């Protein structure tokens, strides 16, 4: 047990609290709405970043797991069922684990293009199912999903009155997920994962059960996505088929790539920043183009992500050359 590894998590908590105080003091607490939504998307992204960065497995189908979680919660808490949200959360997680497990066994045997395409296909199939099935509301999705009462007086719901509580609920989940992942990465499992990323054959030869580890991480990241889906669905009060779409999955991959594979902090920061900007509509009609451009620029110039020393160096040398040019002109 190493206390030092939790220092970043402590800083995260401090930042979260500081931000909340800052927006409330400046009277801009409406900003918390989008930050809460971004936090739930960040759950998908940090899970995916461990899968892509540490286990080296691309998944262009993670929106499917988000949708499985969200749709399960939405179906079970509305209409004919009206189950307790706690129960529906448990069912959603259980379904996700089973599906991720069953689909993970054959998919994770594939590599490269085949792996990318198989995960993409899985995403498309889930999208087709939610779009074509009456229970899931077809193109309209499901609306009027009730709030999720975690404890008496603490409900996941979108009303302006409970904005602050919900902000903390979302960030509590994110912090919990981060601590879990830090533990995982610094454990035996983490070392095994890194060995898979390095050379799967070598890891296998050393007796690491690579298939088992890959599958475990795949299932774990799927559960993260599903939990994000469940909470966001309760928060926004509904879900639609676009949450399962290919563009959503590609967007998650883009954000992980920007943050830097195998860098959960980078993934978290970029996941929050980019989702926040997108949800506030800063990209206008260029939303998809922006994420496409990000993918290419990152892959061409910063294959290890943008939040790293090299970017800083680039910026510094840029600033220096600018300063030099201005001085030269004088």
């Amino acid at each position, binding site marked *: 047990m190493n206390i030092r590894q939790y220092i970043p998590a402590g800083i995260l908590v401090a930042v979260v609290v500081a931000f909340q105080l800052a927006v409330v003091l400046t009277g801009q607490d409406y900003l918390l709405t989008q930050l809460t939504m971004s936090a739930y998307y960040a759950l998908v992204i940090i899970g995916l970043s461990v899968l892509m960065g540490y286990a080296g497995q691309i998944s262009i189908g993670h929106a499917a797991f988000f949708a499985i979680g969200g749709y399960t919660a939405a179906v079970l808490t509305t209409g004919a069922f009206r189950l307790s949200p706690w129960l529906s959360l448990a069912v959603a997680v259980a379904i996700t684990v089973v599906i991720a497990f069953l689909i993970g066994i054959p998919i994770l045997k594939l590599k490269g293009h085949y792996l990318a395409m198989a995960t993409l296909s899985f995403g498309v199939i889930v999208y*087709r199912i939610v779009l074509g099935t009456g229970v899931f509301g077809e193109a309209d999705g499901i609306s009027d999903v009730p709030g999720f009462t975690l404890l008496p007086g603490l409900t996941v719901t979108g009303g302006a009155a409970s904005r602050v509580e919900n902000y903390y609920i979302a960030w509590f989940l994110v912090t919990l997920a981060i601590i879990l992942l830090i533990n995982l990465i610094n454990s035996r499992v983490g070392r095994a994962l890194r060995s898979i990323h390095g050379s799967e054959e070598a890891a296998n030869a050393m007796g690491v059960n690579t298939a088992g580890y890959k599958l475990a991480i795949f299932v774990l990241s799927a559960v993260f996505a599903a939990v994000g889906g469940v909470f966001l669905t309760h928060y926004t009060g509904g879900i639609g088929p676009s949450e399962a779409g290919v563009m959503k999955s590609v967007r998650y991959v883009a954000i992980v790539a920007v943050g830097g594979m195998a860098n959960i902090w980078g993934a978290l920061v970029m996941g929050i920043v980019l989702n926040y900007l997108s949800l506030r509509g800063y990209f206008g009609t260029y939303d998809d*183009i922006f994420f496409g451009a990000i993918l290419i620029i990152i892959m061409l110039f910063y294959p290890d992500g943008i939040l790293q020393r090299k970017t800083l160096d680039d910026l510094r040398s840029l600033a220096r050359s600018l300063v030099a040019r201005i001085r030269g002109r004088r």
Partner: protein
Amino acid sequence: MTFEHVLQYLLAGITIGSIYAIVAIGFNIIYNTTGIINFAQGEFLMVGAMTAVTFSRLVPLPLAIAIGIAVTVAVGVLIDFVFIRNLKKPTVLNMIIVTIGLSIIIREVALHVWDEKVRSLPYFTGDEISSINILGAYISPQALWVLGICATMVVLLNVFFKYSVMGRSMRACSANPVAARLCGINTKNMVTMSFVLSAAIGALAGCVMSPITQTQYDCGTSLAIKGFTVAILGGLGNSTGAIIGGLIVGILEEFSISVMPLAYKDAIAIAILLLIMFFRPSGLFGKQEVSALKEF
């Protein structure tokens, strides 16, 4: 089902299947020289058709199509020069991400250059209401154009790869790039050439199908997924396999309509893709040993 209905489904399946086959061959050409699956392949069809439609109001149809092809080829060359050659860590993962990014950008730029509306080229011969009776089944004359042009393209490509110096050099690159370079073949130019070829056949296929299927800025993605399914089914890199695979997928899709709700038509093609990848990754016609050596 009567004989006429069977024939009707068969004809529809062959028409759409031959388009899938051309998309798959486009994938194969680039895959063979670079080892990349170009996820933007579907966008080549869209760009070709959209450009041709725009110019078809100003110049005669064949010229408009030629311009469409030329513009698409330019886009293909640009992709190679700016992105593929500049890639720092050309791992498979990075390549996939770059081409996915490209397909999104091309699509969204097309939305802003043109708009969200559908367009189509005029019928090459006849018009919307002409119909040809073949043994009781009916087919549009444009479907014959699709079949004819796809068949011609396949024959010409075969001749090109078998008999021309450049075609042979490209094949050499795909067999063994290092050896090819040692023999004095400029592999980088061959990669560019593969983008040119694959953009050109994509654009032509996009134009010839446009009167029947219409063209919209976002029509490329679903074609790319179908084309990829076909390419895998036929064995990645195998053009004969792509043709047979295309026809199989096209015909299966059409016949599935007669027994199943239409909404699941696309899911069927994709389920086939998954099954093939799980159980026979080399495809129906690929050699298992060869595919074991290749990095997918």
